[in-house]
Every structure is written in structure tokens, then in C-alpha cells.
């Protein structure tokens, strides 16, 4: 049976070393919401010599673009978006101390190497379970670039957000390993 970790952000390197591909985790604390357009702006900011709107050290970025919140709710439906589109940007953020990412889908070789070399972690949340996941989100506050709408950079406080370790810092990729017992073609 898989191990279930209870994690509170920010994560230390020691926390990350306990995580193995296939383990389940419940994440609580602040995670940062960013997807395509916010990543582009973060990297442009760094290229200009600027600093990011948040300190990435030990933090997690959740690749998400939520639906608008209904009245009385902190956020709308908020499942993971495809991580591969952020592959061009992710290694740079890991080099700045980012602990990991939450998303869905396969990563590039460069990203997998950066996860291993920088002692980071890549979690998957269940794609399509957006209404269920939004129940774990306590708050959502836009930090930068509100003009991007759903793609703005935001800080979210989550409680027991269920994820699975897909890529650990030991170079194991669950997307490759997980299918092997079931692959007959």
C-alpha cells in the first residue's frame, strides 16, 4: 500500500527526500497558482533582473487556472492543467529554490533532470476532479498580473490537498513505471 505523507509548505530538502514516486500526499499551507501566461511574465521579470512577486524557496507552484468563484466561495473549480506547457520555464524556478510543482501530465527530460539535480518534486493532482479539489482550497488571493484573469499569479491556502508523487528527487517517473504492469502492447 502506498505511503500517505502529510505535508505543510514550505518544504525542506529533507521533506522532499522522504517522497517517492507513487506515494500519496495531503498538502496544507500556501501554494502558488500560476500557469502559462504568469510563467512567461515571471521569466521575463527575471530576465530583466527583477525579482519574483513571491519568494520561491521551498514553495510549490500549482498549475491551475480556476473558474470564477461563485458568491460566498473562495474559488471556483480548480483542477490541474497540463504541466508540459510550463516545461520551458520550470528548471529556472527550481534553480531559484522552488520545491516543486503540482500539475498533470508528462514532463520533459530537462525538467526531470532539474527535479533530480535540485532535489525537487513533481506531484500530480487528478485531472478532471476540479470541483472536488476546490473543496480543499480555503483562500485565493491574486499576487500579481490581475490583467491575466484566470492566469494571474495567486497565493492559495489549501488544506489536505490530495496529490500523488509522480517524479521524485531520485529520478523515478511514475508515468513511466506505473503503466508497466498493465502494458501488454
Amino acid at each position, binding site marked *: 500500500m*502506498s505511503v500517505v505523507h502529510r505535508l505543510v509548505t514550505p518544504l525542506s530538502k529533507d521533506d522532499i527526500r522522504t517522497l517517492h514516486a*507513487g506515494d500519496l500526499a495531503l498538502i496544507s499551507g500556501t501554494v502558488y497558482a500560476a500557469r502559462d*501566461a504568469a510563467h512567461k511574465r515571471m521569466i521575463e521579470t527575471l530576465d530583466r533582473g527583477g525579482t519574483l512577486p513571491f519568494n520561491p524557496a521551498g514553495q510549490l507552484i500549482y498549475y*491551475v*487556472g*480556476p*473558474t*470564477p*468563484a*461563485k458568491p460566498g466561495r473562495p474559488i*471556483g*473549480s*480548480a*483542477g490541474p*492543467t*497540463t504541466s*508540459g506547457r510550463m516545461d520551458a520555464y520550470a528548471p529556472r524556478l527550481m534553480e531559484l529554490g522552488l520545491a516543486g510543482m503540482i500539475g*498533470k*501530465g*508528462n514532463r520533459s527530460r530537462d525538467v526531470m533532470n532539474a527535479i533530480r539535480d535540485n532535489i525537487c518534486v513533481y506531484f*500530480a493532482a*487528478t*485531472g*478532471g*476532479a*476540479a*470541483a*472536488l479539489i*476546490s*473543496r480543499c482550497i480555503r483562500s485565493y488571493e491574486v499576487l500579481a498580473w490581475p490583467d*491575466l*484573469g*484566470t492566469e494571474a499569479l495567486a497565493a492559495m491556502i489549501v488544506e489536505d490537498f*490530495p496529490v*500523488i508523487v*509522480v517524479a521524485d528527487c531520485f529520478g523515478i517517473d*511514475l*508515468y513511466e*513505471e*506505473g*503503466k*508497466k*504492469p*498493465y*502494458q*501488454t*502492447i
Partner: protein
Amino acid sequence: MREISAELIRDTVARLAVEACCHLPESTLTAMHRARECELSPTGRDVLDQLIRNADIAASEQVPICQDTGLAVVFADIGQDVHITGGLFEDAVNQGIAKGYAEGYLRKSSVEEPLFERRNTGDNTPAVIHTRLVAGNRITLRLAPKGAGSENKGALHMLVPSDGLEGVKKAVLDTVRHAGASPCPPMVIGVGIGGNMELACLCAKKACARDVESHNPDPRYAQLEDELLELVNRLGTGPAGLGGSVTAFKVNVEFCATHIASLPVAVNINCNAARHAEAVL
């Protein structure tokens, strides 16, 4: 000649947008339950449990099943004995999309231009509208919101006749294998065979938006649907791509006439939130 007002078209499209995004079709939900029963991977079963709970929450609270409420794809079969009054058909559809996506708290995911500014249009228009003139005095509107996670993993393969059935199977398998975990499996896979470049893609999209319980009426193509499903499920991708025996709920195949020198195969992948809603006016 029967009159149908643009206002009715607008309001119907708005209603369908919310219905499609918040209520998984009964047949897709049945397919999810069936997959839960036969999935061999414990992780896969856990993913399917989450998806079933998610669909229940979305329906009961009228919130989107998935945060990607998609580009709005509208299939409109317009009876040629219909006279649309009070405005243009396409304007009415787009006004309906804007209204439905605003009132339903759905995400606006459309950018006005793909390469330079990529500015969000703010109301999820324009819709992707496929209009067909048909017999009769009714309008059938089928709305199939389509997220990009799955849409981005589709492919067109311009095969030639000698590639034959094996070539078609390989094209589908290669596309699904390459898609991996990104399109949120278990998927519904639409395959369009024949036509030319654009028609094959349209066939694939229609197949994708078809119900999971339907079969192609031609028994040869119905059998191909079953064979392709079995092959795809042997890839081991599994629910959420974490490994398992159910990679797709269904493969739907549509075909059409083609050139003597051509065998186009388009594969359009839909995610586990295989959504659509329909109304007849």
C-alpha cells in the same frame, strides 16, 4: 416556413453551456462506474472514485466538472424550412455563449489572436460553430465544450490507401501513446477516417462529441471501434496516466468518402469529462 427567434437560440445556447459544463452526461457517468468496476490498478480505482465524486459535486452544486470549460464547440443542424428572426444565427450563438459563461461562472478561455498578444476575449467567444443545412423545420443545437489538455493531443495522419487497416490502428495507437497522461484519461477518442484534411478532422470531432454508448451504424466500423478500444487499453496508461487497464472509455469512429489516393486519419481526444448537451428547437 417556421420562425425561430435569435433570442430563443441565444437563451438555449446559454442554458446548454451551463448544463454541459456542470452535468456529466448520464452515459459518461455510467462508463465511469463501469471502468471503476473493471480497473485493475488500485491507484486507477482511486482516481475513478475521485472523478465519480467530482461529477456528483459538480451536478449537485452546479459548478463546473473541470476548470477548463473549454472552447465552445457548437454543432448546429438547421432545417432549411426555418426562418431565423431578430438577428443573425452566429451572433445569437455567440451571445448565448457569452451569457452562459458569465451567468454560470464558467471560465473564459478564448484568446482573440494566437501568436502575439494572446488577449483573452473575456466572454469565451467566438464559439467554434459547425453549421449544416438539413431537411425540416427544426434546429438541433449540440454544445460540446472542449478543453485544451485533450485537444492539444490530437493529430492528423495523412495516410495512403496501402497503409490500410493496420495503418489506421497504428495512427490511433501512436497518437494515444504519445498523449500520455496529459489529456486526463480515461479518455473518449474520436477517430475520423476519410474525407480530406479538414473533413477528417471534423469527422474526428463529431466522433469525439458522440455519446459513449453509441456505435457507428456500419458494423465494420462498429467492430473497429471495439478493436481500437481494446488496443488502446493495452497501452497501460490508465486513469490519470498513473498506470492501469482503463485508458479510454470508448473509441468512436466516423468515416466519409475520400479521394482514390487518400486515407486521412484524424484523432481527436476527449478527456474524462466527456461533456455535451443538446436541444432541439
